[in-house]
Structures are given as C-alpha cells and as structure tokens.
C-alpha cells in the first residue's frame, strides 16, 4: 500500500493521466458539440480508428507527425460526412448509422494497415510528436467551443437547433447548415484524437488501438451533462482512472483492475439513473428533424 502513495507513484500517475487525456477530451468535446445540435453519433470509435490509421500512414511516409495529425483530421472529417449525409439529408436513424460507422471505421483501418504493411519491409514506425502540443489543442478546443456555444449569437442558434429545431427554423436559422457544422467539428476532433494515438501515445499501429476510447468519450459527454466544463472534468476523471488502472495492473496484481476499467461506465450509469436531474440532455438530441412532419 505504501508504494501506491509514494511521490514517485503519484507523479507518474499524473503524467500518465495527462497522456490519456487528449484523445478522450477531443472525442468527448466533438461529441458534445454534435449532441448539442441534436446529433448523437455513437460512431466515434470508428472515426477515431480511421484517424489513427490515416494519421499513422501519413506520418510514416512523410516522417512528420504533424502532417500525420493533419491527415487524421482530414480523414476523420471525410468519413464523418457519411454520417452527416445519412442523418441530416435522409433523416436516417442516428444509432444505426453510428453503429455502421464503427464497423466501417475499424474495418477500413485494418484493411489499410494490412495493405500498406504488406508493401513495406520491416516494422513501420511513425515519428513521435510533442505530447503537450495536442493537449494544448484539445484544451483550446474546449474553450473555443464553450465560447461559441455560450458567447456568440450563432452559438445560441446552434443550441436552439438541439433543443427545439422547429422553433429555430421559424426564426430563420438554417438547421442543415448548423448540423453539418456539428458533424465537421466532430469529425475533425475525433480524427485528431485517433491520430494522437498513433503519433504521440505510441509510434506504431496495432489493431484495436482505439480500444473503447470512443465509448468512454460518449459516457463522458453524459457524465459531464453536455456542458464544456462538465465534459472537461469528466474526461480528466476518466483519464485518471485509466492511468490508475494501468499502473495497478503492474504494481499490485491483487487489486482487480477490471473494476477500475468498469468505473467510468458504472459512474455514468449511476449518475444518469439516480443523481442527474432530467433535462440536462438537449431536448431534440437523437431525434431526426423532419420538416414536413407536424
């Protein structure tokens, strides 16, 4: 027990948590932004996978991790346009489309990796980028999105779309434009989150590298009550749990680390069921907006 409370352990934990934070925070912020406009996207895991592989391949060939991250951003944006088109243009069911995005993203990542690695000899490696660079970007993203949502007129309109799109439309707000904006931002942030994993977190690619981070990000949005500050706190908490869990696996095998892995989901479920006031969620979240319907 004493080894757990030592200064070295705690500082190590802090550093590890800061390494875990950016992908969670980027994904959760993007998802929060998307849900504030009424679009629940459970396909984060898939988008992150695409960002991870494209970011890795670009970084490997250019030997520049920042170009790699740019590739992750662009690919995340592009792949999320499938979701955008189907849910915004065709009003398709968001959960089903999101689910298919996960299947597509993971399959695409595996396909690209096997195809590229077959043509290359030896172990493929990307170049490591600065950890705090991406952490800075993700914190900036939270602040910017907070500013947009709460301090600008356009942000007010954006939130109105997520609460009551019919009223928003009668005020002359272009609903589709706002929703496409939501999807673009979400795709960009998730793409970067994926590219972070293959350019900062580790410098190679392994199958399933996203390993559920997309789903933890979804939980963080709910746990953070769909608010920037809440999401930031939720992500920090979950990142600490993740870091702690990994350290305990190494330090002390007698503690069942699976329960720590479970905690983000359990906390969110309990909070949602018993402690959260109803009405935190944007009212039109997850519902397609059909203009012709009454």
């Amino acid at each position, binding site marked *: 027990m004493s080894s757990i409370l030592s200064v070295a352990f705690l500082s190590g934990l802090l550093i590890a948590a800061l390494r875990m934070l950016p992908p969670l925070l980027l994904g959760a912020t993007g998802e929060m932004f998307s849900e504030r406009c009424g679009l*629940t996207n*459970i396909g984060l895991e898939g988008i992150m996978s695409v960002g991870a592989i494209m970011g890795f391949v670009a970084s490997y060939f250019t030997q520049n991790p920042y170009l790699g991250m740019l590739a992750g951003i662009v690919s995340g944006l592009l792949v999320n346009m*499938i979701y955008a088109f*189907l849910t915004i243009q*065709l*009003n*398709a*069911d968001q*959960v*089903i*489309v999101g*689910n*298919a*995005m*996960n*299947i*597509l993203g*993971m*399959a*695409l990542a*595996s*396909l690209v990796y*096997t*195809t590229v690695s*077959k043509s290359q000899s030896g172990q493929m490696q990307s170049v490591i980028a600065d950890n705090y660079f991406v952490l800075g970007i993700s914190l900036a993203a939270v602040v910017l999105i907070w500013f947009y949502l709460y301090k600008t007129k356009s942000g007010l309109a954006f939130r109105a779309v997520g609460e009551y799109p019919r009223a928003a439309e009668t005020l002359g707000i272009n609903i589709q434009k706002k929703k496409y904006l939501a999807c673009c931002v979400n795709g960009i942030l998730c793409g970067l989150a994926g590219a972070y994993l293959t350019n900062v977190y580790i410098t190679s690619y392994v199958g399933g590298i996203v390993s*559920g981070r997309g*789903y933890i990000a*979804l*939980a963080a949005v*709910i746990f953070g009550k769909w608010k920037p500050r809440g999401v930031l706190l939720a992500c920090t908490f979950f990142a600490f749990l993740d870091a702690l869990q990994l350290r305990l696996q190494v330090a002390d095998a007698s503690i*069942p680390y*699976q*329960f720590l*892995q*479970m905690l983000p*989901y*359990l906390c*969110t*479920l309990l909070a*949602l*069921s*018993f402690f959260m006031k*109803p009405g935190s*969620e944007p009212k039109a979240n*997850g519902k397609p907006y*059909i203009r012709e319907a009454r």
Partner: protein
Amino acid sequence: MKDAIAKPLKKIAVPVISAVAAMIIGIFVIELTGNNAMEAYSYMMRGAFGSMNNICELFVIAVPLILTGLAVTFAYRSGVFTIGVDGQLIMGAIAAAWFVDAFKNMPGVVVAVGDILTGMLVGAIWGAIAGALKAYRKVNEIVSTLLMNYIALYLADYLYTVPLAAESSKIPQTEKVVETARLPILVGGTRLHVGIIIALLCAAIVYYVLYKTAWGAKFRAVGMNAVAAECNGINVKKYMVASMAVSGAIGGLAGTIELLGTQYRIQSGFCADYGFDGIAVALIGQLNPIGAVLAALFFAALNVGSNSMELMTNVPSSIADIIQSMIIFFVVAGSVLVERNFFKKLAWKKGKEEKE
C-alpha cells in the same frame, strides 16, 4: 390482392438491392488494394459454399447471429432501441460457464438444459435492468445498454480471470465445458451442432409470439404508439421491462449456445461483437424474425467466405466488414427513401393521373 404481393416485394427489394450495391462497392475497394476482385469473390463463394464442411461452418457462425438478430428484432418491435445484446450475451455465457462447472457431475442432459435456462435467466435480468431504468427512471435505453455492455465486459473479464479461471491454464479463461454437457454435433467431422435447430426454433417462436398471440400484439402496440397503447389499458412500463427481459433472454441464450456448442470456454474475445452484428441482422431482416434468419445466413456466408478468401488471396478479410457496413448504409437510406418520399410521391402522382 395486388397489395399482398407488392408490399412484401417492396420489403425484400431494399435489402437485396443494398446487398448487391455493397458487393459492387466491394469490387472497387478490392481493386484499390491492388487485387483481382473477381478472383477474390470466387474464392469467397467457394469458401462459403464450396464443400459440406464449409456450409456447416457457415451455419455454425450463423447461430449466434440469428439469435442476436432475434433479440434486437423483439426489442425494436416493442419500441425499445437496445444496443445491449453484447452485454446480455456475455453475462448469459459467464453465468452458464459457472453453472456448467459447478454441476459438472450431474447427468449431461440435466446440466445442458439447466445451463441454457441459467444463461437465459441472467441475460433476461441484465436486459430487464435497462428496461426498468427506461420505464421508471426515464434513462435512454441506447445509453444505458451501451454503458451496461462495458460493465458486463469488464465484469466477465474479472470473473474468468479470477474466480472462474481454469486452474491449469496460463491465460485467463474458464474451464472447458465437460463433454457430456456439450451440444451434440449434427454432422460428423464438422462443428455443426444442435444450436442451429434451437436458433431456428427460436425464430419460429418469436414470430409466433409477435404475430399470432395477444401478448405479442400488445408488445407491438407499445412499439407502434406507446401513448395509444396506454390509453387502451396496456401497462406500457411493464411491457417495456418485459420486452427487454425477453430480448435479454434471447441474448443470454446466444451466449450459452455459443459456449456449449462452439467455443466450450470463455476467454478474451468470446463475444466478437455478435450483439452489434445482431443490430445489422435485425435491420436488414426488416425487423422480421424470418428476415433476421436470412440476413444472419447472408452475414455468416460473408464471414466464412472472406476468411477463406484471405487465405487464398492477398485480400484482407476486413473487406467483409466494409461490405457489411455499406449494406447497412444502403438499407437505411433505401428504407427512408421508400417510406418517406420515393414511393409516396409515385403513388401520389399515379393517383392524380388516375383522377384526371
């Protein structure tokens, strides 16, 4: 009479056209990876249907897909949009693994039957929790089942790593199911077991309950319009919980059958996303139990075929998943077009012309 043919035809048209379109996209993707698509597809066909052994393997893979597809179908028909079948499957399977180990000295048939009931019960409880949270605490079932999937995954991970771990093995896994309790093999020399009959029977029962009983009609009434159902004296909350319990029981059954018939032990990767595939199966089967069976067989063929394609060519088997996701996109888009605009507009035009 014309409607009696046109309606089911319209329903079949969307998934079939979607599958064809997705396969065509698959051709482009395979060519992009620098391989010969026609060669790859022919190996895929041979892999799925080439020999008796392959066809049997196809049915083995189809068993969990049929069952998870049915679990999703039942819940969706009752208006509950669960994505929690994975969690129910793994909870059912882990309970079954405990049961089979605890009672391994009893006669095989007793153990197998008791095991299936245990798995179904635990799956039902796991599902009913999400149903109760929806009915009584207004927790969105998509969110709660998603969270509960991960809780189940890590709980099962702990259980097969510590309390239920096989003593003699180095990697975390449960004890192998005793031979007497395993499901009998149907075709000698293959892995095809009685589970396929159980799955098909289950599809028939779900169909019968949903469409031929008053009980099923009430479930569907809740699914179609909860307010109207409430006004007609149906206890909507009770039916929500019950529909998740039934869905969970089928999910638990899927896990138990997979344990007793195919994998015999639980270790990392036991579940292999069968629950998520079940959503696709249910959707492509147009939320119809018989459609789910057909869709599951199609997915199984795609899976088995792509695995042997990977062995014979340079094309990775993940192409099957890409095709699968494309089918979902096309079915979703197609159904929306059929329901909302396309056919309605046509019918409206036709009506106008007839009037004139």
